[in-house]
């Protein structure tokens, strides 16, 4: 990759842009998509290594779904090209679509079909023989926990079942790469747990390219993270490296539970007082818990506890921690 290209993406280390189409599970070269004046995606150059569970983060409208649709060959790029498992997917070649499984944000199926019939149809489209189709359907129904619903009409499935069905159909034919577009965004906590668990089981077997704006999901299952903001790639990094790069500059405070309005007022006053301090970057409050991002750690360590005592608050927990992915994401996409 040319230096100029890397220079255009300052937050992208060479290892995530230098691998070519042949050696990366996903490779985008200057991939751009404009809708009239709107630049949905701008010159994305990115390599996704084989075997990774790659989190593609961004706020709503950042260009995540556009990238997914370009990779899946469902949209035509304004400029640039993309390869999945060594085959160009932006050239409308049929064979390229055997290299990945795709799950859109809101998967839709033929509601009159059963799970079994749908997977059978997908297998036929992929040219799998009858025996291979049968064995894969059994395996995928087991993986997705849909054995009991195998003969039921898809039209009667719950949201979680539909997402698991979506991942199962994407895995049909054992594609080396899985493109999952916000697979948990419309699910309740139980459904999210089921789907994330299913994705975790794929680690090491399939490269998963997962877009989401739910940071806890990404933090839980992904090993590599990219952040897209307003159509531009602002950062790519291993998740652990990313968190380690950011120093311990957050402190979590947990107070006695709030029972009355006077407690409430005291905590609110303390929170306001904190925000006025020059060494504090941000304060996030959730009931009786405060998460404080600190700009000057040594001053914070000196002044924080005296401030707590000055406000006459009862402290249950006091812990210095690393910033979460959410903190980093908010900072980068601000």
């Amino acid at each position, binding site marked *: 990759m040319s230096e100029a290209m890397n220079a255009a993406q300052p937050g992208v280390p060479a290892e995530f842009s230098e691998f070519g189409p042949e050696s990366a599970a996903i490779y985008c070269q200057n991939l751009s998509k404009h809708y009239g004046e709107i630049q949905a995606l701008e010159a994305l150059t990115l390599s996704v290594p084989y075997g990774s569970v790659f989190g593609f983060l961004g706020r709503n409208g950042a260009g995540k779904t556009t990238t997914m649709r370009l990779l899946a060959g*469902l949209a035509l790029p304004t400029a640039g090209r993309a390869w999945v498992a060594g085959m160009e997917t932006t050239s409308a070649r*049929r064979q390229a*679509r055997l290299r990945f499984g795709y799950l859109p944000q*809101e*998967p*839709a199926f033929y509601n009159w079909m059963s799970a079994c019939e749908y997977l059978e149809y*997908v297998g*036929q*489209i992929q040219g799998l023989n009858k025996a291979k189709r049968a064995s894969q359907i059994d395996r995928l129904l087991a993986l997705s926990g849909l054995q009991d619903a195998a003969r039921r009409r898809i039209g009667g499935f719950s949201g979680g079942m539909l997402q698991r069905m979506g991942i199962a159909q994407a895995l049909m034919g054992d594609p080396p790469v899985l493109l999952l577009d916000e697979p948990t965004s419309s699910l309740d906590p139980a459904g999210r747990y089921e789907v994330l668990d299913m994705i975790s089981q794929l680690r090491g077997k399939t490269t998963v390219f997962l877009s989401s704006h739910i940071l806890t999901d990404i933090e839980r299952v992904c090993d590599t993270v990219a952040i897209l903001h307003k159509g531009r790639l602002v950062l790519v990094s291993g998740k652990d490296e990313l968190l380690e790069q950011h120093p311990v500059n957050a402190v979590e405070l947990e107070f006695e539970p709030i029972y009355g309005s006077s407690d409430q007022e005291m905590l609110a006053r303390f929170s306001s007082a904190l925000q006025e301090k020059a060494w504090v970057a941000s304060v996030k409050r959730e009931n009786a818990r405060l998460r404080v991002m600190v700009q000057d750690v040594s001053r914070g360590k000196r002044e924080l506890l005296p401030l707590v005592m000055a406000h006459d608050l009862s402290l249950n927990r006091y812990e210095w921690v690393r910033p979460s992915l959410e903190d980093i994401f908010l900072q980068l996409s601000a």
Partner: protein
Amino acid sequence: MLIMAYSLSIFLMITLPLALAAGLRRVSRPVWLLFSVGSLTFILSQAVHLPLNDWLADIGFLPKSSVDELPLWRTAVTLGLTAGLCEELARAAGYALIKKLKPIWMRWQDSLMLGLGHGGIESMIFGGVLTAAGFSSLLSMREIDPNTLGLNTEQLAALKLQLELFTASPWNAILPLIERTLAISIHVVFSLLVWRAFARGKLSRDWYYIPLAVLYHAAVDAAVVWTAETSSANYVLMMLIFTSTLLPGWAWALWLLRKERVLRAAIKRERERQVGDSSIWAELSVFWAASIKELRQLWRTKRLLVMGAVFLIFGMGSPVIAKFTPLAFRSIEGMEMFAEMIPEPTAGDAMGQYIKNLAQFGFILAVLMAMGVVVGEKERGVAAMIISKPMPRWAFVSSKLAAQGVMYLTGFILAGTGAYYYTLFLFEPLALGDYALLNGLLYLWLMVFVALSVLGSTLAGSTVSAGGIGLGLAIALLLAGALPRYGALLPGGLMGWANQLGQRAAGVAASLPGSASASAEVMANGGAAASALVIILMSLVLAIGVFEQQEL
């Protein structure tokens, strides 16, 4: 044998351009939409060309009724120039538009696809439709005494000559096919010539290719007119002269393609691709799976059942309505006098009722059932799920039309069987051959509207607008049937043919001019049948071309 030979020739004149385009697409992947763009440039050029020739005839620059009215050289040159100017300028306008809107479609293979579209639709219309119209008319006239047709001596001689030629040997059927194949090849050359004017991005330097194409087109057409009038119907001589005018064009095109080494490279690439990529058989197998899935969907969603029931009811009901309408009037107090005015119903009335019912309700069903087939899946997101798999887009659209075709075939079998049984029961047996052909024609007529609705469903962004587009296209086609000179060659002409067959099947003599007996000669309208096939195929090609460009 004669009918089979001409039917095959006509079928090939209609389908050969599409087969060539499909082959080109596999070798070098130009988009299908360019075939439709090429066809459109031809149709638009004719919208100017035909009235221009009429006007030149009106002002005496071209002969009006007989070619002997004016010097032949002048007629040949004028006809050649009007064709060259209209068609090549339309082609140039097409390239200018493509260059502006989609510059990536300015490759050599794109120009070949445009040429195939332009020459292809010409082959379908001037070859397939007109040959079918002429052949079916002549076939019908074999049993009629030409002297009773009220023609002048010159027209009568021409008719007799044509009849002799058509009926002399089945091998003569190959002549129009060869001529059209040659014409397609020269259209590809013309297309390359005009492409050269735009290809290098310097029209100010390369403009001369456009007048060159006009002059070459004019020379070829003038030679064809000249030899047609001077070769005394010696078709071998005509073909030889025609071919010799094409040789310089072919040589130049081959030189150009070899020079750019594109052909060899494309074929090599295709061989490599075939190894690792899908073969045509793999794609056909997906098309088959998709068609079966569509049929299962029609069955499981009860559409096939509903449609079959509707067709069966109208099939069985038609003879019943014909039989009992006078009785119904008689049973209503005060209406008895109307019953007296209605003649005793016959099997012919049953057939008339049958055709009317299936045409009216079939038309409505065709639009309603097909309007959501593509857009419905796009709206719900199923299309995106399926197209992200190795499903060729052509197979996605074609399977829907194929399944609709099978559904209506089932409907016609049910309706036909029901109507036959009740006509037999209430009236008399029908002539089975005529009755089967009648149903075939009605089916072909209906499939035109199904294809237009599938096209509407592909073009539209919502099911409602798809219905509007499908209905609009269908009504436009029905209205076009009223056009003087050309209207009878449109699919609406199938109705007249079907009605005559219905009457003959029922044993009622049709009143044809010159009909020698009451055995009822039917005036076949092969042109309408061929045009129906052309519209179905071109609607499908346009739908595929548009769907290939759509983002899901």
